[in-house]
């Protein structure tokens, strides 16, 4: 046993850093969850319209872009709460740093708003447009609304594509934000980008299923959710294979998630509750033509939030300090 080793650190007990990193609390996983959700809610109705060529019928899908903007704003609120120098928040928008995923993200967040706003406007019915015009007229903004509605209609197709692209950027960046950090073996995988996007699509579909949809729309969204859950399971498997076959830090990350300290929440909340059970329920519901239980989308949402929390906590605990 020549490899026995004891390492004692003196003169340092930095708050939030020692004994293991705890700089990011609940705010960041909540933001990553809401960001993914906003991406899913923005992308799914846009894709549905691009593929069918028809505007969505239900109010929930027509106004989904606005829901996406609200979710993103809630997420950005959580992000703001996390900043330890809140007065300097404007600094994000005085710079673009090409090597920083967070800088990419802060600019992508800004792109979501105009796209979501115009897409939602274009989805309004004639009746709703009249009411909006009358409301805006009270504040002498009628001409602005007419102008915006004109552009929302004229640019409908480019806006739909923009929603898909900006939404994908938003979903992927939330994963790359963590995945780009070589210092945290538990995060250091490029798979996190597509994994978080897929989870965003799945949770986005789940949230839409909780709203009142048209029968046909519900049918399509459930099927897409099944596809997203399957893709997510494959990506999680690929993530684990990458860890298991990597260097010793990656192997440690594999052990952490699959049988170590984070195994219980990972398997029970993320894999079984968030993916396995809803997948089985949705498959049964499609097969037996049963009405969708409210439980299924709620489980998917719990799973999506758990995925972010498990990775956030386990990732911060993983460090090169474990490998002296």
């Amino acid at each position, binding site marked *: *046993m*020549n*490899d*026995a*080793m*004891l*390492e*004692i*650190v*003196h*003169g*340092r*007990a*930095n*708050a*939030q*850093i*020692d004994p293991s*990193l705890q*700089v*990011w609390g609940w705010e960041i996983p909540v933001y990553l969850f809401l960001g993914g959700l906003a991406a899913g809610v923005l992308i799914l109705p846009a894709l549905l319209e691009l593929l069918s060529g028809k505007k969505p019928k239900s109010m929930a899908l027509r106004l989904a872009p606005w829901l996406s903007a609200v979710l993103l704003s809630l997420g950005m609120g959580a992000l703001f709460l*996390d*900043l*330890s*120098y*809140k*007065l*300097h*928040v404007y*600094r*994000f928008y*005085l*710079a673009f*740093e090409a*090597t*920083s*995923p*967070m*800088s990419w*993200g*802060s600019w992508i967040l800004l792109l979501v708003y105009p796209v979501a706003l115009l897409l939602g406007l274009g989805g309004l019915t004639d009746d709703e447009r009249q009411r909006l015009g009358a409301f805006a007229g009270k504040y002498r903004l009628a001409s602005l609304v007419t102008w915006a509605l004109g552009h929302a209609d004229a640019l409908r197709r480019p806006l739909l594509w923009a929603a898909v692209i900006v939404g994908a950027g938003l979903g992927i960046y939330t994963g790359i*934000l963590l995945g*780009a*950090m*070589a*210092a*945290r073996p538990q995060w250091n995988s490029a798979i996190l980008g597509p994994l978080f996007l897929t989870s965003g699509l799945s949770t986005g579909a789940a949230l839409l299923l909780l709203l009142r949809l048209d029968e046909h729309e519900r049918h399509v969204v459930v099927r897409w959710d099944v596809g997203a859950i399957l893709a997510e399971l494959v990506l999680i498997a690929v993530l684990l294979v990458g860890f298991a076959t990597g*260097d010793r830090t990656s192997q440690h990350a594999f052990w952490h998630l699959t049988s170590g300290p984070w195994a219980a929440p990972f398997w029970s909340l993320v894999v079984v509750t968030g993916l396995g059970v809803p997948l089985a329920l949705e498959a049964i519901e499609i097969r037996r033509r049963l009405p969708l239980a409210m439980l299924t989308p709620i489980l998917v949402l719990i799973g999506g939030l758990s995925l972010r929390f498990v990775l956030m906590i386990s990732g*911060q605990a993983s*460090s*090169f*300090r474990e*490998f*002296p």
Partner: protein
Amino acid sequence: MSRDKRYAMVVDTRLCVACKACVLACKGENAVPDGFSRDWLVEEVRGWFPHLTAENRSERCNHCAKPPCVASCPTGASHVSDGGVVLVTHDKCTGCKACIASCPYDSRYPHPDGYVDKCTFCLHRVQDGKLPACVEVCPTFCLHFGDLNDPQSEVSRLLRERKFKVLHPETGCQPNVFFLT
């Protein structure tokens, strides 16, 4: 100050007695807030009694040649300054803590005033022709500071003549604090 300097620190682990004078000197010089440290001591003991070996290391930010903290900073607050020294511009820092999470050495910490803080190699002293505070006070003379691009400097000579290591070279950050073994 010319841009082509490459400041580095060399720590002689055979001389270090882990007395923590470097830690106190740094706290005094840089007004490091209570409960935080920019440098620290690691005592590494290997083997089983009576066959033991010990290594004492005075550690700090490695002022990496490829600093992941600078790459991950969204505002440009973390930057590479004179002589390759990695600094944080307090006025640009939002306290997002991406740099802290991306540092494999966990050398940064959130300052109670909001910005992220770290070792500066005492650049304010070095630019005045002085040594960093930790080097200045070391009673065993185990800390050496200088310019790696100057072949005549003490740090260059030590790295030519002695065996050395850096911490976690596998991270690819190319750290600039060297430990003589």
